């Protein structure tokens, strides 16, 4: 696609697609030079190619692209520079003061034409039927250099060697390599390769996996995935798509483009998978998505992607999508397809009837961390203003609610303190209870890039996650702690820093409460918190722990990134506070490169929390007991709001079993599969009189539902998501909702059927309401988002363009608080019956409960949950790799296959929860974080034994699920 920019003129596109050839430089010093007679001033270190592009003059190129460092191999970008001999490559030549460059001369013209002629002499000329036709840089460059003929002809005796003909003169061509179709999403066609190395460099520089290489030398050079004999699928390739995007030809090509053709337009939107919140361009033809490509101006991802966002969007058109509403009298009945009117009336009547019989507080709802801010805001508004109670909660309850509580107490706000760009300035990173290469892959790539530049890494995790040791990355320290001992380990780190005098006294005196610090210092300095004293309990080598503490305190900018391995414990909130203490102790807050960074699980879990999804908080984290806050909403909503907190998800289920909670509206959430202690969740749902599920598919929770309202995907609606760095990104509708309504419209239908009288016609109006009521969002509007691309809250009069880094001049609450963090062992303990500890996690190719990714080709990488077990623990139980094993806890049991690995320590087993036929949460218990009731997913005492196959429970569950998914044939 061609684009023209005229720099400096009003109306120039803010977010140009232009490829500047080499990456931007950020030097404060500038250099002025002349290119083709035009003066241009650029930062020192900029290449001649990039400088030329800023003038709007594109120098022909093949091996250069602006998300990769210059390589200088294609020889097409040659220029002439006055006073220098020869024709240097403009991509590898830095600008100098006063330089005079010519990009188009007779000499250069001839040179480039000669280079192109050589390239084309070994390239098939099947452009008309090639998948990259119209989107091929080789084709573009042949045009740009004026190539009109290829003069190389075979001599009469022998054919010219080439890579693209399958057979020559009746013989097989030894240079020809057939297409590699093994990856489900893209093909590798070596016959079209020009060996520019862009794919190899993208795999190294951008993704950091190092799966690709150039094999052979000279004319034999070929791109190769993995070792000899590997295909793309069997290699280390993680299918992030960076190589496909970098490829200038059809050598690496999306299968969707091969099938559909090139797109006709692009719409910038936000990925609906993890909390990184990558910006993508949905490339469309008609209302069909041709491909999703990462947007180079996306500030979270900076042009990178992972296998989920880049490729796994096929679920949107999967045959399992339900697009018509359904109801049923009892959950044992088959579903009946009805009109929207009937479904909404049925739901509204039932809910009101329950309230008439059991009281106003007998119903509630769950907002979705996968839906937009506007949708979440409307669901909690409906619950508070229309249902008339505060029984609203969200899946953040089961992931990052301890972050909200812990950081709120320490700093005055639950927000993560940095933007993702911050990692570029980090010197020492602690990753605790997170597995970024699987859970937050694009952030992991950015982190690995920084680690390759020399930053050092401390991993605190029971499992040897990939970051501990992977190509060109090795953690300085891995502290493989016993699950459930986070508080002891983080407090011991603080012990070393305090007792060895490594803390940042100036920062603490200026920014924190000094009296509290002294009390805290006295507490952590006690011998019982020393690494040696806790070694037996935590299993962490004391010398390693001491060395890690010293490194973090003295190694420069220190940043802490953490995930659900921190929060999903009975002491989740305490660990968050311990992490806050560690950051304050070392002065690592309030500037780039440092901070406390919770890695949020779902795409909009940050937003769902911001929007008042919690039962005790109105939008903007304001407690429901605050009269002034309630007053703001009561005036606007024309309803009296309850000043007492409502029920949290686990409390709702308890109340349901007890008989005081009877109706639930669940938007885009599958609590039966995602929440702990499945038996208890099922009992709670089964005890209700009206469960309304709004989702894309008949999920597991829908087995217990009376009303199914079809939802729509992020491609089918407008709105915003807020990612882990508080960045509000636009979600843009690229096609009409298959179900007829955007999710916010469905909520409005239900609310209005219950008497709300809402009249929103676009989510922008909802955002205006959020801005009008919530101080941290006061400056946010769709106009601002169009202009800036995205913005990080707080965004208001004080911060009109948002806030990349929090607590710059002082903490939100004034003085930072040091909070004593006493280790308390979880009540979940191993014993003779359950001698092993189960901890849970995620895998790269699958997402959360798998509802989306299981309905894509991502299943080739992970088609079932497996149990990771240490070879020692396996041996004593007679378990071999791949055996069926029964995993049992006091809550329940299930069966799955074993994977023997020393990634887990002896005594620890590990699995994922992506597949409903395994249901890892049958095993997990109802123990939870003391402050927030966030479930203790990460520690369950279990036993593992050989078995023959799925457990009775699994068989029964599958049968019941099948029964509950029956749909009556539509009436004529």
């Amino acid at each position, binding site marked *: 696609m061609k684009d023209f920019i005229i720099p400096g003129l009003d109306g120039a596109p803010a977010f140009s697609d232009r490829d500047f050839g080499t990456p931007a430089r950020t030097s404060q010093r500038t250099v002025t030079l002349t290119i083709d007679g035009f003066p241009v001033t650029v930062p020192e270190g900029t290449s001649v190619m990039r400088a030329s592009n800023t003038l709007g003059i594109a120098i022909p190129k093949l091996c250069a692209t602006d998300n990769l460092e210059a390589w200088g191999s294609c020889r097409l970008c040659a220029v002439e520079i006055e006073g220098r001999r020869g024709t240097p490559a403009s991509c590898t030549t830095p600008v100098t003061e006063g330089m005079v460059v010519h990009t188009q001369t007779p000499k250069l013209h001839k040179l480039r034409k000669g280079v192109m002629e050589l390239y084309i002499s070994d390239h098939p000329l099947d452009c008309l039927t090639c998948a990259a036709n119209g989107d091929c840089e080789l084709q573009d460059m042949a045009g740009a250099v004026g190539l009109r003929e290829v003069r190389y002809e075979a001599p009469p005796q022998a054919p010219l060697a080439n890579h693209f003909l399958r057979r020559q003169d009746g013989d097989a061509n030894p240079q020809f390599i057939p297409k590699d179709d093994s990856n489900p999403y893209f093909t590798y066609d070596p016959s079209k390769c020009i060996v520019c190395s862009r794919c190899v460099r993208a795999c190294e520089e951008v993704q950091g996996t190092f799966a690709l290489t150039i094999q052979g030398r000279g004319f034999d050079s070929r791109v190769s995935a993995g070792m000899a004999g590997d295909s793309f699928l069997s290699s280390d390739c993680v299918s992030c798509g960076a190589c496909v995007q970098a490829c200038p030809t059809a050598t690496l090509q999306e299968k969707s483009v091969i099938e559909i053709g090139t797109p006709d337009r692009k719409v910038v939107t936000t990925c609906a998978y993890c909390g990184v919140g990558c910006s993508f361009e949905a490339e469309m033809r008609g209302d069909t998505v041709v491909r999703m490509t990462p947007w180079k101006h996306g500030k979270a991802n900076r042009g990178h992607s992972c296998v989920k966002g880049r490729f796994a969007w096929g679920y949107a058109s999967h045959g399992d999508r339900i697009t018509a509403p359904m109801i049923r009298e009892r959950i044992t009945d088959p579903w009946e397809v009805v009109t929207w009117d009937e479904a909404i009336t049925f739901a509204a009547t039932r809910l009101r009837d329950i309230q008439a019989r059991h009281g106003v507080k007998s119903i509630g709802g769950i907002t979705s961390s996968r839906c937009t801010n506007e949708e979440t805001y409307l669901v909690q508004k409906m619950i508070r203003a229309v249902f008339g109670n*505060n029984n609203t909660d969200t899946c953040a309850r089961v992931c990052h609610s301890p972050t909200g509580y812990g950081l709120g107490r320490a700093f005055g706000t639950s927000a993560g303190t940095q933007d993702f760009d911050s990692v570029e300035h980090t010197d020492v990173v602690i990753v605790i209870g997170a597995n970024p290469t699987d859970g937050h892959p694009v952030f992991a790539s950015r982190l690995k890039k920084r680690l390759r530049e020399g930053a050092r890494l401390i991993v605190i995790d029971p499992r040897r996650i990939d970051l501990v040791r992977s190509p060109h990355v090795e953690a300085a320290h891995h502290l493989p702690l016993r699950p459930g001992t986070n508080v002891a380990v983080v407090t011991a780190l603080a012990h070393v820093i305090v007792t060895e005098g490594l803390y940042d006294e100036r920062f603490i005196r200026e920014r924190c409460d000094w009296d509290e610090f002294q009390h805290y210092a006295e507490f952590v300095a006690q011998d019982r918190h020393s690494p040696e004293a806790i070694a037996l309990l935590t299993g962490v080598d004391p010398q390693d722990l001491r060395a890690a503490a010293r490194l973090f305190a003295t190694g420069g900018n220190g940043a802490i990134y953490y995930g659900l391995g921190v929060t999903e414990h009975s002491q989740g909130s305490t660990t968050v506070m311990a992490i806050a203490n560690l950051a304050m102790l070392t002065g690592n807050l309030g500037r780039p490169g440092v901070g406390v960074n919770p890695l949020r699980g779902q795409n909009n879990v940050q937003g769902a929390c911001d929007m008042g999804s919690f039962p*005790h908080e109105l939008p903007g984290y304001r407690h429901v007991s605050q009269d002034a806050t309630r007053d703001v909403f009561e005036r606007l909503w024309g309803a009296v709001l309850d000043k*007492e907190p409502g*029920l949290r998800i686990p*409390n709702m289920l308890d109340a349901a079993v007890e008989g*005081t909670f009877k109706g639930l509206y669940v938007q885009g959430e599958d609590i039966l599969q995602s929440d702990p202690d499945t038996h208890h969740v099922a009992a709670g749902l089964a005890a209700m009189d009206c469960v309304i599920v709004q989702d894309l598919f008949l999920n597991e929770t829908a087995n217990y539902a009376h009303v199914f309202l079809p939802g729509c995907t992020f491609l089918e609606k407008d709105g915003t998501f807020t990612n882990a760095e508080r960045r509000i990104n636009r979600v843009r509708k690229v096609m009409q909702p298959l179900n007829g309504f955007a999710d916010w419209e469905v909520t409005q239908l239900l609310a209005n059927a219950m008497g709300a009288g809402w009249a929103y016609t676009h989510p922008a109006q909802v955002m205006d309401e959020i801005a009008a009521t919530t101080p941290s969002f006061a400056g946010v509007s769709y106009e601002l988002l169009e202009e800036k691309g995205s913005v990080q809250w707080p965004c208001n009069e004080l911060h009109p363009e948002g806030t990349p880094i929090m607590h710059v001049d002082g903490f939100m609450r004034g003085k930072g608080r040091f*909070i004593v963090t006493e280790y308390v062992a979880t009540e979940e303990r191993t014993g003779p019956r359950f001698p092993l500890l189960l901890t849970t996690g995620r895998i790269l190719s699958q997402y959360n409960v798998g509802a989306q990714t299981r309905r894509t080709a991502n299943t080739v990488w992970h088609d079932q949950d497996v149990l990771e077990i240490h070879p020692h623990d396996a041996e004593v139980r007679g378990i071999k790799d791949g055996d069926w094993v029964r995993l049992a806890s006091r809550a329940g049991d299930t069966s799955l296959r074993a994977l023997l690995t020393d990634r887990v320590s002896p005594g620890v087993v590990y699995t994922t929860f992506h597949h409903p036929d395994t249901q890892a949460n049958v095993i997990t218990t109802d123990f939870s974080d*003391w*402050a*927030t009731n966030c479930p203790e997913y990460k520690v369950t005492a279990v036993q593992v034994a050989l078995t023959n196959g799925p457990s009775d429970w699994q068989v029964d569950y599958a049968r019941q699920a099948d029964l509950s998914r029956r749909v009556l044939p539509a009436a004529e």
Partner: protein
Amino acid sequence: MSADAAKLVRMANQIATFFASQPGDIQAEEVAAHLKAFWEPRMLTALLAHADAGGAGLSPLALRAVERLRVPTA
């Protein structure tokens, strides 16, 4: 003790255990404030009823906090 009461007792004790480790002499107030801020009224009512019935299993600090909850707030 019913399963529901046992769960509330465990949760209240967990909260008390955290605040017991905190400095100062207002731990009972802190526990009571936490309960008030995060627990739905029917949970508080059930906890108070359990305390009325002898409060079996509640830690001393949790019991003191429960007593504070009985004082009507202005």
